[in-house]
Each structure stands twice: as structure tokens, then as C-alpha cells.
């Protein structure tokens, strides 16, 4: 029994030594290359114009993700997502819905911000509040709906 324990202890010690060596090896690993755009590329300006005209995120995937957050009645994109400088001061993304899963919402926004590479101005309202505000021409709702925007989910028929 004691012998067996001794063997186990020996094996564990060996494993620790191997781990130590591996840890050291990690440090001397070659640095992974970092890439950057080469502005001397022949069609750099043309390509830049083309790419920057497109929406920064995939709208279709956004719709799927937003639909899964809860009872979503309305989702509006503006500002950043439409490459508009205006509209963004109100909200880049505006969602109206009930029973929204806050954890899922948080991770969705985090992933979206990572993809876009910028902070997203986001706003959420419950359906009742939105309809009240919509009915009384609330400033927030008015500015958003009068400016450049796109309703990517619209179950309210507005």
C-alpha cells in the first residue's frame, strides 16, 4: 500500500515538473503576428469606401438574436448601423418588448459591440410605455422615428 502511494507521489511530482517546463515554453513562444491594413494597397481607397458603406453588423443575425430575447414587438436600428452620424445620439438600437431576458440581452450587446468595434447606444422600453409615449409624441420616440432608421422587427404595425 505504501509502495503504491509512493509511486503515485512520484508520478505527481513528475507531472508537476512537466507542467513547469511547459509553462516556461509558453513564455518563449514566438509572438503571434498582428495584422493591420496596408494603406498603400492599390485599391485601398476604393475598397474602403465600398466596405464602409455597408452596415457594420449582420442585420439578419441581429434579428434572430433580438427575437430570442423575449417578447419583442419592435426593434429599430439607427445611427451607427446605418452609417449615419445623426440618429446615433438618440439610440443606435432601440427595442420594445416585454419579458426580456436581461442576461441574454447583456451578452448579445457585448458581442455586438465587439463585432462593431464601438460602443452601441441602446434603449429598451416595455410595450405599454412605448405606446403611451408614441401616443403623446414623446421627444425620444419622435426624434428616432423621424430620423433615418430601419425597423428590423415590427409587430406593432407602426
Amino acid at each position, binding site marked *: 500500500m505504501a509502495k503504491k502511494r509512493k509511486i503515485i507521489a512520484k508520478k505527481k511530482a513528475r507531472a508537476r515538473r512537466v507542467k513547469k517546463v511547459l509553462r516556461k515554453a509558453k513564455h518563449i513562444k514566438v509572438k503571434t503576428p498582428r495584422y493591420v491594413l496596408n494603406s498603400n*494597397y492599390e485599391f485601398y481607397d476604393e475598397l474602403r469606401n465600398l*466596405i464602409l458603406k455597408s452596415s457594420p453588423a449582420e442585420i439578419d443575425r441581429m434579428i434572430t438574436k433580438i427575437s430570442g430575447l423575449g417578447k419583442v414587438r419592435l426593434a429599430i436600428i439607427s445611427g451607427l448601423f446605418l452609417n449615419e452620424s445623426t440618429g446615433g445620439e438618440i439610440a443606435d438600437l432601440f427595442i420594445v418588448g416585454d419579458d426580456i431576458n436581461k442576461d441574454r440581452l447583456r451578452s448579445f450587446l457585448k458581442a455586438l459591440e465587439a463585432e462593431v468595434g464601438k460602443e452601441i447606444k441602446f434603449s429598451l422600453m416595455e410595450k405599454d410605455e412605448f405606446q403611451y409615449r408614441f401616443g403623446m409624441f414623446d421627444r425620444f420616440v419622435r426624434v428616432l422615428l423621424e430620423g433615418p432608421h430601419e425597423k428590423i422587427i415590427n409587430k406593432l404595425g407602426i
Partner: protein
Amino acid sequence: MSKSKTNGRYSLELLFGSKARIKVLKFMFRNYPGDIDIKELAVRIQETYPMVRKEVELLHSIGLLRKN
């Protein structure tokens, strides 16, 4: 004139023949002059590492991307 089937949404992806390639390009242009390694880029644009590596290597081979 007929309306496009995809609503114009994936026109660049279809034109360039790769969704991942367009995502890499979008990210690089929007974050210019930032540099990034393939692993982090894959996480940020939510594509797989092999896919992103393939596209980055292609863009590097034509000279649009350079190693920093």
C-alpha cells in the same frame, strides 16, 4: 426592375464570395489603424479561427493586410 431576392442585405458577401472575408474587411476598416491577431479577430467578429486565418492569409497574400 426586379427587386433583389436578398433585399440588398448580403450583396457584398455574395459579391466577394465569403461572409467571413467581408467581416474581416469591415472590422479592419472600421478599426483602422488598429492591429489585431487572428485569434482576437475571430472572437470579435464571431467566426471560427480556421476561417479567419484563411481569410487573413489571403488578404495578406494580396498585400491588403500587412504584419505589424
